[in-house]
């Protein structure tokens, strides 16, 4: 079977003035006067008569081909059952009112609690900032002391290593603990400061 190509030039099927009118005539859409005019023309014009015959054949094939589809007999009852199920699944007005009341109560409770929550959240932030400032101050003081007394510390360490190794180990352990604490604190600052601002 071949398909017509788009914009293909076809020979005229009937007289251009009558093409649409013949269809209306066959569909019974014309007034008595127009019907008579078309019938006279079709009687006299072979091309239009042929066109009308073709249309009649096409109409017969379309009538027999395009059959009205039929819904199943139980379509309506099934549909009504679905509707009833959907309707029964819907909450009643009393249930809706009760739920609305509960949600309003919950909202009021949350609103009453809001200042306390805000205070707690802000207090946490203040304490965080204080702790960060404290860590920074201790770090600064230790570094400052170490730089100012570098020679004395170096001499004390040398003496300690040679004369009292146990004391040196105790100092080294203490310094390592303080260093680790400061490093941990600095890590928190680096991690949390962007979140605060």
């Amino acid at each position, binding site marked *: 079977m071949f398909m017509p190509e788009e914009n293909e030039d076809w020979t005229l099927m009937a007289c251009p003035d009558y093409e649409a009118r013949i269809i209306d005539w066959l569909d019974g859409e014309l007034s008595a006067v127009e019907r008579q005019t078309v019938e006279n023309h079709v009687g006299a014009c072979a091309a239009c008569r042929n066109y009308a015959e073709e249309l009649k054949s096409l109409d017969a094939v379309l009538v027999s081909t395009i059959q009205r589809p039929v819904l199943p007999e139980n*379509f309506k009852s099934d549909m009504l059952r679905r509707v009833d199920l959907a309707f029964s699944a819907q909450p009643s007005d009393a249930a809706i009112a009760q739920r609305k009341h509960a949600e309003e109560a919950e909202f009021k409770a949350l609103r009453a609690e809001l200042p306390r929550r805000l205070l707690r959240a802000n207090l946490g932030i203040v304490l965080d900032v204080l702790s960060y400032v404290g860590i920074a101050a201790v770090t600064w003081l230790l570094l400052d002391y170490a730089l100012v007394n570098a020679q004395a510390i170096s001499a004390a360490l040398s003496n300690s290593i040679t004369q009292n190794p146990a004391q040196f180990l105790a100092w080294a352990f203490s310094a390592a603990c303080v260093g680790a604490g400061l490093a941990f604190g600095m890590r928190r600052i680096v991690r949390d400061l962007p979140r605060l601002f």
Partner: protein
Amino acid sequence: MEHDIRQRLDAKQYREAFELLMDRFQNKVFCLAFSMVRNETMAEDLTQDVFMKIWKALPGYQGDASLSTWIYTIARNTCLTEIKKRTARPTVSFDAPEFEDALQKLPACQTSDREAGAELDIQVMLAWLPEKYRRVITLFYLEQKSYEEVSAMLGIPMGTVKTFLFRAKQELLKFNRRNENVYA
């Protein structure tokens, strides 16, 4: 025609109004869906969806448009949404419902029955027509050749229905002539 339904809607008797609606419009909606999706099973499912939507929207129906216009609009939009969904996933399978009808017609094609062959030809010709022409011509023959009904169901002016129908028939005739020339 809609007076009794509107009375029930005014009295908030939605269940009764819905039953009357179904009696009057279920076949129309089914035909409209069928003309748009060209598959009975799918048209039936869509008809169910349309009536579920109508049921849910019934209490909100304001009566600005006529009931039939309102229902046909819901039906058209539901079908168009389904068509869009199908276009969005154009996978083709022989299990797909749109092939059922065609497969059912294959035995008729294998026989030398001239009439069955002609019917298959016309199905192919209809499938070849542009969508808007096909909808109009299908609905025209499903609705006992009523221009008014086709116009109301598709939501297009009656003049447009006539034009589309004229062009559809012209295309089908051209198609038919060409095939006759090829097989002659």
